[in-house]
């Protein structure tokens, strides 16, 4: 009986992940087109609209970069934990925690000048994300509790906290009974660069460069990767796994918290339960496609920013924006499958071929 077997290629093709990403995009577009056809939409028209609104001009490009900024930060957050084999899938919640603390600090500090207020709020964002991550990080490093589930559970908790503040202590007295939180002070708005892009994009880019160098070029980064890939070797080399896990997870939470503060001061004007807007979850896909490398995060975040802006624009054609979420997941699935075929080839194995192949 003949059956297909995956055999590792003797020569692994170069740049497989980049190629896999491209194949992933193409695969997702094909699957998305089938879905659109089945639901009586014209895929060419839909894709054209998506492309135009995301990449068709300087204004569109600025929208894409605006979206790519939080994606790059959450992607980096997931990647920092991921570079030592940990999964922070609660970036969504840490964004909320960061934005919440930043809002609270802005409320307490009256009359700070713009740059100082922004610095304080961004720093509180980092702290807020770290605070939410503290429990999962301690539980993971001391007791080995799966950080996958604990970080995710706290997403729901942090969103409820904002809902609670919205109707309770932080309810805007001037909102005529409508439950919402006061806008952050006008001087807290991140300075714009062009179009809808603000310096948040530069902050994200700067952090990507810093972490890219830190992970690949420093002893700290080497130990981090070593602790992830071969914990026993790392232990013999004198690396404290416990502290590495704590550091990686807290940093990850801090970066996601910063994403929340950047989103608050750069794009939104007030804290709402919807502020994180799925960026934390998309960040997981971004980091996974980038193989946890900060350089890759930048590229994937840009593409995903474009997909999301495109997804918004097709609502005017009467097409659900859920298409963009589906496309993101399909890019990942297709890329996962493609990369397998770059590293393995299919051989038909059976009784007859067993000898001839050797």
């Amino acid at each position, binding site marked *: 009986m003949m059956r297909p077997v995956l055999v590792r290629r003797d020569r692994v093709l170069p740049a497989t992940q980049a190629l896999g990403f491209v194949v992933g995009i193409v695969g997702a577009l094909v699957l998305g087109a089938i879905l659109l056809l089945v639901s009586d939409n014209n895929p060419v028209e839909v894709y054209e609209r998506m492309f135009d609104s995301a990449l068709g001009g300087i204004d569109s490009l600025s929208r894409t970069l605006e979206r790519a900024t939080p994606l790059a930060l959450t992607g980096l957050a997931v990647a920092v934990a991921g570079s030592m084999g940990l999964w922070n899938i609660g970036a969504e919640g840490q964004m909320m925690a960061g934005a919440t603390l930043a809002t609270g600090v802005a409320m307490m500090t009256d009359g700070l000048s713009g740059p100082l207020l922004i610095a304080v709020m961004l720093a509180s964002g980092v702290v807020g994300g770290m605070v939410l991550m503290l429990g999962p990080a301690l539980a993971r490093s001391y007791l080995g509790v799966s950080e996958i589930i604990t970080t995710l559970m706290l997403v729901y908790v942090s969103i409820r906290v904002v809902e609670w503040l919205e109707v309770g202590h932080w309810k805007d007295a001037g909102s005529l009974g409508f439950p919402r939180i006061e806008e952050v002070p006008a001087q807290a708005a991140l300075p714009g660069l062009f179009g809808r892009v603000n310096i948040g994009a530069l902050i994200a880019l700067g952090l990507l460069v810093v972490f890219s160098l830190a992970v690949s070029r420093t002893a700290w980064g080497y130990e981090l990767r070593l602790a992830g890939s071969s914990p026993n070797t790392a232990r013999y080399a004198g690396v404290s796994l416990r502290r590495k896990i704590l550091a990686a997870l807290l940093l990850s939470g801090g970066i996601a918290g910063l994403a929340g503060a950047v989103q608050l001061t750069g794009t939104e004007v007030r804290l709402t339960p919807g502020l994180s807007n799925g960026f934390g979850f998309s960040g997981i*896909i971004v980091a*996974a496609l980038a193989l946890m490398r900060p350089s890759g995060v930048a590229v994937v975040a840009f593409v995903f920013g474009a997909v999301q802006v495109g997804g918004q624009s097709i609502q005017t054609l009467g097409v659900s924006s859920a298409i963009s979420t589906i496309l993101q997941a399909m890019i990942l699935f297709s890329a996962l499958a493609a990369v*397998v075929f770059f590293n393995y080839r299919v051989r038909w194995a059976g009784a007859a071929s067993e000898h001839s192949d050797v």
Partner: protein
Amino acid sequence: MSEAALVGLFVATVQFATLVYLAALGELFAERAGVLNLGVEGMMAMGAVSGFMVGLETGSPWAAFAAAIVVGALVGGLHALISVVLGADQVVSGLALTIGGVGLAAYVGRNVGGRIPETQFTDMSIAGLADIRWFGEIFFDQPPVVYLAVGLGLVSWFVLARTRLGLALRAVGESAPTTDAVGHSVMGLRVGAVMVGGAFAGGAGSFLSLYMAPGWVEGMVAGRGWIAVALVIFGAWHPGRLAFGALLFGFTLALQPRLQSFDIGLLGVQVNEISPALLGMMPFLLTVVVLVIISWRYRHRPSPAPADLGIAYRREER
């Protein structure tokens, strides 16, 4: 607190327990075979929307339930294809399944959101038992899916613990190479277990849209799939302990919307004055606390997790 309110709380406890138990039981099969599937939330969402839509078309809750089971198995099959057949990372594939499944459910159900259901499961009282005071109402006057879940739990225990198939399934989760050497098909067992897991999750999702909250609303699974994943750890990969955990989580899920109506004081706080938003985080905080307690108890003992959980198997790389 009135007697009726208390009985109502336990009736709802059993129903919420059924919801998370079905999904967790499916995840238990996959994990016992060595495959971590973090896509439960996505599979439940697809089950919920497809169950509701088939219910609209056919008017039959059982046809809707069956459709949700099939859809769940197919969605689970995607995870099996990527992570078992192709051997890609199980965590990545599972997360993509959750994100993609929730997105696809939103897309598929975009035109039926808020529609009034054509059909739903109704309570089925068991003659003779349903009249017992308190217990009758709590355990024997429930929708058929509740009884089905109890039956499936018993069957699952029997299959896993007492049959050759169950032995092979557990073996492939502990050591895929050994199981392969003995002559079982690693791929067949694992793909089968993941698809059965998907079927359970799909069914659980439709229990939500066909009984607990009849209708379809985007995001209606609301983290209950993730609670099911945590429940498998709580239940130490055992169908019986899983049932106990399901009742505990079912109780907190049922308690949350009801505390508002309980006029009792606890530690100097009137419970009906606690904000619903704060009560809403209880099941999720409880999950974290419970996981920490479990890990604390196992800190000096080997984990009860299947040894090969999360590890892809390729015969050529043995």
